């Protein structure tokens, strides 16, 4: 190899720090765009609920002033750049350690931030969801900041019990699911904000409200739904793969270890959400709370369980 492992590991750290810096700039650009839109938000005609299912995918957001559009485009370009830097950081980290780069908490968070960024950019290429940008970037920035400050672990070999291809599969699925759930959670949160404003009913949305600058509830709901039904089977698969791995290394596929328990709680909340979405009277706002509960459980599993609760998974290593 041209570079030795130490150099690669340092290179990886440099890329991650650069990603943080660029994400911070992206956040500024997006925030400025959002602020500009709030200040100038024109009246918005909300979709009437009866029309929601029938109308085409209308995203009747008042066109932002061109300076705002420029800021948004800058924000997106910076996000793409930061995403690529994050990707580079993950890849070099894997090369430095000579294995898949998700063997400890630090690496999980790097890859999860990557997955969330990828999910956001993937959605952005299909739908006008730039209003999410500021939130996704904020979350990713927070995660990366936590990773380099609290969770940092030097690159190294895996402890033997983690040295299994089920690790590769299980953790990769969990991370991908988590990244997409993040987009779902942001869309759901914005949906709730926007919904409140629309229900206050004034067809004339008050000028200067953040909610008025958001996409319609219909768009937000569709993005959330797409994210959830994409992420949910991936999460299901992650849980199953985890059980197979547990069977492989401990002789039982399910032991109610805290990590397993919270994966289960996450899954059940999202199942409740999908049911609520199909239940008359629960669709929309009420169902959204279940999705947010699921995301909260996912986050708790990621941070709370690793940091505060001991269990067999605690060798995940902080």
């Amino acid at each position, binding site marked *: 190899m041209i570079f030795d492992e130490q150099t690669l590991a340092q290179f990886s750290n440099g890329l991650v720090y650069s990603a943080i810096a660029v994400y911070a700039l992206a956040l500024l650009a997006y925030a400025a765009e959002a602020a500009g839109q709030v200040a100038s938000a024109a009246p918005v005609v909300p979709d009437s609920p009866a029309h929601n*299912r*029938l*109308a*085409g*995918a209308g995203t009747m957001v008042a066109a932002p002033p061109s300076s705002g559009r420029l800021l948004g485009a800058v924000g997106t370009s910076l996000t793409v750049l930061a995403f690529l830097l994050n990707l580079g950081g993950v890849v070099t980290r894997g090369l430095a350690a000579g294995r898949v780069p998700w063997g400890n908490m630090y690496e999980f968070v790097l890859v999860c931030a990557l997955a969330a960024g990828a999910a956001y950019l993937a959605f952005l290429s299909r739908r006008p969801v730039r209003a999410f940008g500021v939130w996704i970037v904020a979350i990713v920035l927070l995660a990366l900041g936590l990773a380099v400050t609290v969770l940092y672990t*030097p*690159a*190294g*070999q895996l*402890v*033997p*019990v983690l*040295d*299994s291809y*089920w690790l590769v599969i299980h953790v990769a699925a969990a991370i991908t699911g988590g990244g997409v759930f993040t987009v779902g959670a942001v869309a759901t949160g914005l949906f709730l904000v926007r919904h409140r404003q629309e229900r206050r009913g004034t067809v004339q949305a008050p000028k200067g409200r953040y909610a008025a600058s958001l996409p319609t509830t219909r768009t937000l709901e*569709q993005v959330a*739904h*797409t994210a959830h*039904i994409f992420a*949910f*089977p991936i999460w*299901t*698969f992650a849980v*199953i793969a985890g*059980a*197979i*791995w547990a*069977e*492989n*290394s*401990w*002789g*039982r*596929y*399910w*032991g*109610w*270890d805290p990590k397993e*328990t*919270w994966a*289960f*709680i996450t899954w*059940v*909340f999202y199942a*409740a959400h999908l*049911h*609520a979405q*199909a*239940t*008359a*009277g*629960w669709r929309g706002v009420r169902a959204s709370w*279940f999705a947010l*509960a699921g995301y909260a*459980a996912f986050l708790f599993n990621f941070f709370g*369980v690793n940091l505060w*609760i*001991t*269990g*067999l998974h605690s060798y995940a290593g902080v």
Partner: protein
Amino acid sequence: MRTAVMLLALLALAAIPGSLFPQRNVASDPAAVINYAQENPRVAPWLDRLGMFDVYASPWFAAIYVLLLVSMTGCVLPRSRRLWQSVRSAPPPAPRNLARLEGHHSWTTSGEPAEIIATAAAHLRRRGFRVLTSTDEVRAERGYLREVGNLAFHLSLLVLLVGIAGGKLIGFEGRVAVAEGGTFANDLSQYDAFTPSAWTDVDNLEPVSFRLEDFDVSYQTSGPNTGQPTKFAARLAYRAGNGEEQTITVEPNHPLDVNETKFFLTGNGYAPIVTVRDGRDSVVFTGPVLFLPLDTDNASEGVIKAPDAQPAQLAFEGFFFPTADVGPQGPYSMFPDTLNPQLFLTAFTGDLGLSDGVPQSVFTLDKDELTQVRRDGRPFSQALSVGETMRLPDGQGTLTFDGVSRFANFQIAYDPGKEITLVAAIVLFVGLTTSLIVRRRRLWMRLRPSADAGTMVEIAGYSLTRREPPPNEIKNLVAALTSPHLTTPVNKDTPR
């Protein structure tokens, strides 16, 4: 469905306390509940009464998932019947007002109605629709697989429960620690811990025996993660039934599997080899003694018992450090491997309390009837390197540190429901994915004589799921129908 939502939310909430309070029969720390009860003597009995230390086996937890499965069955079986009926019957007729549906298109054409109908029907059939035609209408439906997936998914939950129950009713779990050179035969009496299920056939465990030939561990000796283990390998010579003796290397994630009884390597530690002589200078104990690892550098604690010693029984208690060093807070271990192994021991004489029949842990001393050996009024203690001997004052006995061997912890599991569970999980995953990906939808085309001559064609779709139908489906149909050889459209709506 409302019941399902509530019960699912309840199930999620009910699972939470089990991750916050220590649980019985949850593998990580067998003493966790006992320790918790000692630290919280007030609340612990109440928590126990509420089942908080046994959440996943408690009646209220079971009540929630049983109710959930019952309501699921009650919900899904009628749904399967309806699905069966709808598969066998025709797609329903078009609603009166197609303009209210999704992707509505209409235009006027001079084309021949029969030809338009035939073209549309052929186009849709090629794309996997079930199609029914009449002289002025085409009805089409697609995506029945979604319902099949949904049913398979829900019903697989019942099968999953059967598989889990199999393990919980017939299987068992056990643990045993074996020192290098030591043997184990799969018999109840040889386990350190054994958790049977209701119907475990404890007298007919799989006939297997093995000897731990050696146990190989290596650690990183440089770099940022110095001291992190890189390899555990237990070489076993084993015999299954009346078969030949065979050897196998058991590593993490690579168990020994004999007819579904599996032996997993789950831990390890050191077993200092000692020889104890009593006051008469006769050997009353010799061999490895298991010491319990306390930290990642394998500082370990343990006791050595010599009940045969005369005139009084002897016992030793203390620590083993594989790479010993002495810091400001006393001796500790610097590295998990044996670079400078030392034993730090104190001694006791008297009655070990082994004869009263109460089982004792091999890692603790019952000190009720023991007195600590003292010299000059202070407890007698000594640090020993390999080869050194500790001589108790007044000729009460000696202990020689002969060497160090390792022990391996094995987790032994038998779970006959595992295959059923696995199959159920696969069906669950495939069914779920199918039901979420496939979009069940209907599509209608209606022809009507137009007021100003020609035929008015109307097309619209309807999604039976929460997702929109594929956006190009209707456009493609319109394109097929408006291709030049049929007709040119007049007055065409653009899709919204």
